[in-house]
């Protein structure tokens, strides 16, 4: 347990030192959300209608930005090989790295989302569903993204390829996340959709590290 904790802290420390990732992801999120009112016009009714979708899609794209670097730095300087040789299972290490990745990217997105929802005139009833949905959905995005990041390690044009691989797998999270917000906005219960998001997280949390670890072993061969 403490070894995993040290791995998470190591990743957080590295992310903090590089400084770029959390700020870049957050800035991208804010900027792209701002583009929508500028593009479709400031009419509040229209913005309210598209707010859940815009927030979720831009959160998806923002989290895609930082995925390529999830394993790349460790792969390039050889620490990934060292991690693979440790007595700790590689799957557990992948889970720890996904958790650190979520703390650096998913958590800021979750905290920023309600503030940006103000700019899009999101219905007041939908805020709890938005935050809960993001809190449940962004870890799943980190986990599924880790699979793509591991598989495209060292590939040509890895960044674009990563997006092509990972976005189809993101679709269920997007659908249920938006459905939760829209249900709450219309006065229905968001709970069924949030439960489905939780189910996706529960499915991804044990399974995604296996696929990602298999991809890492492939890259290290």
């Amino acid at each position, binding site marked *: 347990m403490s070894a995993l904790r040290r791995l998470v802290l190591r990743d957080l420390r590295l992310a903090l030192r590089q400084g770029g990732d959390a700020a870049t992801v957050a800035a991208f999120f804010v900027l792209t959300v701002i583009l929508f009112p500028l593009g479709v016009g400031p009419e509040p009714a229209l913005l309210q209608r598209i707010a859940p979708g815009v927030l979720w899609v831009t959160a998806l794209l923002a989290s895609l930005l930082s995925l390529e670097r999830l394993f790349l730095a460790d792969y390039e300087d050889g620490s990934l090989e060292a991690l693979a040789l440790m007595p700790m299972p590689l799957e557990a290490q992948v889970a720890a790295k996904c958790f650190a990745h979520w703390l650096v990217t998913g958590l800021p997105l979750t905290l920023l989302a309600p503030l940006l929802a103000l700019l899009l005139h999101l219905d007041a009833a939908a805020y709890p569903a938005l935050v809960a949905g993001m809190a449940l959905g962004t870890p799943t995005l980190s986990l599924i993204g880790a699979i793509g990041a591991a598989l495209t390690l060292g590939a040509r044009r890895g960044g674009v390829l990563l997006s092509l691989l990972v976005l189809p797998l993101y679709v269920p999270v997007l659908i249920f996340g938006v459905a939760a917000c829209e249900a709450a906005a219309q006065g229905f219960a968001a709970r069924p959709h949030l439960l489905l998001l939780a189910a996706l997280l529960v499915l991804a949390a044990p399974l995604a590290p296996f*696929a990602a670890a298999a991809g890492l072993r492939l890259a290290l061969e």
Partner: protein
Amino acid sequence: MLSFANPARFMRLSAALLPWCAWAAGLFLAAGVVLALFVAPPDYQQGEAVRIMYVHVPAAWMASFVYALMAGASAVGLISRHPLADIAARAAAPLGAGFTLVCLVSGSLWGKPMWGTWWVWDARLTSVLVLFFLYLGYIALVNAFDEPTRGARAGAILAIVGVINLPIIKFSVDWWNTLHQPASVFRLGGPTIAASMLWPLLVMAVGFMLLFAALLLVRMRTALIAARARALQIVANEAGTRAPPRAARAMGPAQ
């Protein structure tokens, strides 16, 4: 089963099998088209436009079946390192993508007169579109590495991860309110489609399956021949630099 692992043996078997597959495919497809266009009855509601079903439904069945086959071959390739498994998965992917595209386009052409729209974002159509992009992602991934085995194994993992989409496609019409109709053939309680429509549909389905088998064999044979050609090229290059021992080693089995 391991005796089929030898590429030379596969080449001999597939050379014998391919003409039969191809002719049988042609026969079944021709018979299926005749049955579908002239023998099968028009639908009481849709009239003659229902005949698109005889292309759309077999294509849809093949789209899911080929993905399942691809995932199965990928699993075999990962677990037992069977050399033909990776080749089979790689060969099947563009064929599956083609069937999915035929399914989507024929469905769209059918939807315009029947539903009044070219497209609708219901669960069935969305999940089949996701399947199409999973195919494209797989093809992009296996071609993204200079080393072919790395690409094949990475694609294998991706194919297995994407299998979760298949039950979603199958049960999407049950789990959600979809514009797409629920299952009429593969369902508990047997088919609800009329026998006069079911038989042409099954003939077309068999024709599509045989077509896929023939095309798969052609693609696998081509891949093996290309690998052999590459090995021979290496031999030729090394003979050119006058290094006979290395040339002898390069004459090893085709990848």
